């Protein structure tokens, strides 16, 4: 039945498209498609043979995202996208799913007010509304980037750090002849959660930005975002109210060959639970001042910033994480004869879309100190003070690039003690286009990255903590025959040491501490072939091997081999 319904929809769309297109570009299609097949082999380590876990599994799927754009009048566009997916083994329609992936209407009213209704991508500043990147995923290689990009596309986590939400957004601006040049406004409101009886109320997030441009190189922006419950939409008498307001000033200036940029943002938040007399009211503020400079001819970019974010600063639109670290992995969820729950690993993070969060969350989400302890909530991580610096250099002909980052942060207030933790982050990365040095016709690119993060706190044997995370990654992309490339990647992730992990209640207040001890070693390597039909159409065959061990947790080590075939295209 499902199969026939899908066939009908596809035929209907294909049949109407040419006829309407002839009348002018009023209906058109876009979309993408991919097919993936996995062949996994899982081996549990340890002294006792694992006779319970299936060693080999085959899985995969094929899917098509079919976007239909309709432009009924000049300034209005309706976009709908259907996803048809068939899991491996789902013959004759039995495994087929048909979902509405997105639906939106956008347009311009009177050539002045732009609006978007439905599924919208929206972003403000890093402290108000931004889907910040996870530290653990900042540098991925040629092989791990491919499945990670699939996940990001699937869960709408875009490179521009927007949040995909359902609601309404509009922006408009005015130009003036005196005093100020421009005033721009952007407003949005999204529904985060539907109310349900005996549960929570309807939860919305809304706000916007007012930008004043007094002169060409100076901008002042006022942001306001509020995550709030609409009272009486359920039987729950308690309603969350979490407004955040910030003021930002951006200034650009040219100093000879250097382009300078200064940016300052400061603001405050308030988080309260109306209707609950015993709930706390969390109020706090932050400021962030940064200066950067770019030298056009040499390709050098430098930046330095200082920030201070209060321990009770709560900004859900900025602090909600991309990854839900308290969820369980899908593949080989349990293993060993005891069928222990397998922990999230870096390999799962580039393969398992179910681990990803797509919604704004109130309070502070769970995080795993192994995969980012210094800034688990991005730049808006509460209770942090310190400096962030960075230098980037890219050779003019794009032959070589280099970047170095250094952060030195600390707690503003101690957790359960007057002693503060210090966080040191260092990253060094680079890439070199050997083909350009050797005048080869085809691409030969090498990349390498080293990231390290250290957490330490002095004090007595009960206060002191010391946790180090580091990753080394190297990648190769060599087009040895026109359109046919060899890809290779090596990653090693280590996490070693101790921290005291705070347990928080429903009001995101610390109630307890758990000792977190780890000595984890994760190694990934793989290689494969990629055939590039065009920039939008590629076919790949990868072999990958991942091994995991933690000498302290008591979890069994394991090795995970994988053959993977991908074919994807966009149109």
């Amino acid at each position, binding site marked *: 039945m499902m199969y026939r319904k899908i066939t009908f929809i596809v035929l209907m769309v294909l049949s109407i498209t040419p006829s309407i297109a002839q009348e002018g570009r009023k209906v058109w299609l876009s979309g993408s498609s991919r097919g993936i097949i996995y062949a996994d082999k899982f081996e549990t380590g340890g002294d006792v043979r694992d006779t319970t876990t299936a060693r080999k599994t085959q899985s995969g799927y094929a899917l098509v995202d079919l976007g239909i754009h309709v432009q009924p009048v000049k300034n209005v566009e309706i976009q709908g996208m259907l996803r048809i997916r068939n899991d491996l083994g789902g013959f004759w329609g039995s495994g087929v799913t048909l979902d509405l992936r997105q639906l939106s209407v956008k347009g311009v009213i009177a050539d002045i007010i732009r609006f978007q209704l439905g599924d919208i991508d929206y972003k403000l500043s890093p402290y108000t509304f931004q889907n910040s990147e996870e530290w653990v995923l900042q540098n991925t290689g040629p092989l791990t980037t491919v499945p990670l990009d699939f996940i990001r596309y699937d869960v709408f986590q875009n490179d521009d750090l927007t949040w995909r939400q359902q609601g309404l957004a509009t922006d408009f601006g005015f130009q003036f002849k005196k005093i100020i040049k421009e005033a721009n406004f952007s407003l949005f409101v999204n529904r985060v959660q539907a109310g349900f*009886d005996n549960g929570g109320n309807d939860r919305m997030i809304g706000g916007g930005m007012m930008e004043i441009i*007094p*002169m060409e190189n*100076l901008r*002042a922006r006022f942001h306001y975002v509020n995550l709030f419950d609409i009272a009486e939409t359920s039987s729950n008498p308690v309603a969350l109210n979490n407004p955040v*307001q*910030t*003021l*930002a*000033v951006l*200034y650009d200036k040219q100093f000879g060959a250097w382009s300078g940029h200064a940016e*300052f*943002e*400061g*603001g*405050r938040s308030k988080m309260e639970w109306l209707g609950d007399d015993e709930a706390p009211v969390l*109020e*706090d*503020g*932050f*400021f962030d001042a940064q200066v950067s400079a770019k030298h056009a001819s040499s390709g050098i970019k430098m930046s330095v910033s200082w920030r*201070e974010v*209060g*321990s*009770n*600063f709560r900004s859900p639109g900025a602090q909600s994480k991309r990854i839900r670290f308290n969820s369980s992995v899908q593949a080989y969820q349990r293993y060993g004869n005891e069928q222990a729950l397998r922990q999230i690993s870096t390999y799962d993070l580039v393969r398992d879309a179910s681990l990803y969060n797509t919604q704004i969350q109130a309070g502070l989400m769970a995080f795993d100190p192994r995969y980012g302890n210094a800034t688990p909530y991005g730049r808006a991580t509460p*209770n942090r003070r310190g400096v962030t610096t960075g230098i980037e250099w890219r050779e003019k002909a794009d032959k070589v690039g280099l970047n170095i980052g250094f952060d030195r942060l600390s707690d*503003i*207030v*101690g*957790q*359960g*003690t*007057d002693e503060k933790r210090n966080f040191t982050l260092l990253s060094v990365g680079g890439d070199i286009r050997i083909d350009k040095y050797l005048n080869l016709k085809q691409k030969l690119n090498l990349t390498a990255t080293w990231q390290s993060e250290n957490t330490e706190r002095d004090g007595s044997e*009960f*206060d002191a903590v010391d946790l180090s995370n580091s990753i080394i990654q190297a990648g190769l992309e060599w087009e040895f025959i026109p359109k046919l490339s060899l890809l290779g990647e090596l990653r090693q992730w280590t996490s070693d040491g101790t921290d*005291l992990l*705070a347990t928080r209640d429903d009001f995101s*207040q*610390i*109630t*307890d*501490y758990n000792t977190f001890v780890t000595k984890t070693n994760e190694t990934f390597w793989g290689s494969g072939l990629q055939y590039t039909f065009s920039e939008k159409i590629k076919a790949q065959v990868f072999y990958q091997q991942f091994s995991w061990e933690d000498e302290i947790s008591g979890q069994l080590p394991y090795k995970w081999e994988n053959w993977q075939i991908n074919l994807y295209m966009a149109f």
Partner: protein
Amino acid sequence: MRTIFKLAVCSAILLSSCAEKINSEGPSLEDFTGEFSLVTPLATSTSDVDFSVGEKLILTAEFSKSTEWTLEITGLSSGAYKVISGKSKTLDEDNAIWNGSITDFPMFAEEQVTIDLYVEEADTNFYQSVTVDVSGVKVNDGFLVADFEEGFNSGWAVFAQTGADMTFRIEDVAPAAQGAHYYDMGGEVDWDWLIGYVYFPSSAYQVSTYPLNPNPDNVYFNVLLYKPEGITNALALFQFVEDDNLDGVFTEASEDMYSVEVSALEVGWNQISLKYADINALVNGQPSQPKGNGVNEPNKLLEIRILMLANPASGYSQLYMDYMIFTDNEPLNP
């Protein structure tokens, strides 16, 4: 323009400078570290508690550090059992309060109970015990259909087939889930699925229909069923007969009857709690269209029927039944 710039920066600094100046957040680490010891022994707010009038028992103790603790409360006569656990430095009214409820059946009776405190630290297994008298048991709000403590209501109707070892009667020997009595439904009938039934008409309570909230989402039907060891074939069918036209009579062809089959029971007492709105009409065990107005209307409930069934080829079957009660807004919390 510089003035605007300065004003904007000053405003932003003012906005951000509202942080409360504190040295640390969260409970002190000192409360979570160091050697464990008992600072204040386990004590109770009273030595005699009457839960029937709303009294609660508060347990108190203090440790040298925050630790994981367990309180086990056991009825010396009934064997009723309640567990309260947590992690804290003190036991007090916020985390160690008992309202007479249970964790495992049976329910507490008017009896003496022991309260055992267990603490398991890395190198310490601590134990302390106190006793308290319960002079009144917890009262559960709702409409009590049957607890069998006052004998067999003359308004109820019972039928048992003439099979072997038939036991459709009230028992006063262990194991009652509540009080001292329960209803025993057992027997072997090798020619019919029906072993026997008990009907609970509203007229037994001197009302035309059960006095329940009309909103089926707010009404829960609760009953306790006991499966004896070795019984694998027991099947209880609960039928809820509604008087849609309020004429005092159930007309099978034109009025609603909703049903639930209960079979997958654990050995021992099981609590069955059903939201009235979730109960469907059944034909041969399969959901079907109700024959009346098709609306679950608790306030028109005319009769509850409990049919004890078993496959005639499967031999002897038996279930015990106790404490049938309708509760408002939530399942029974015994």
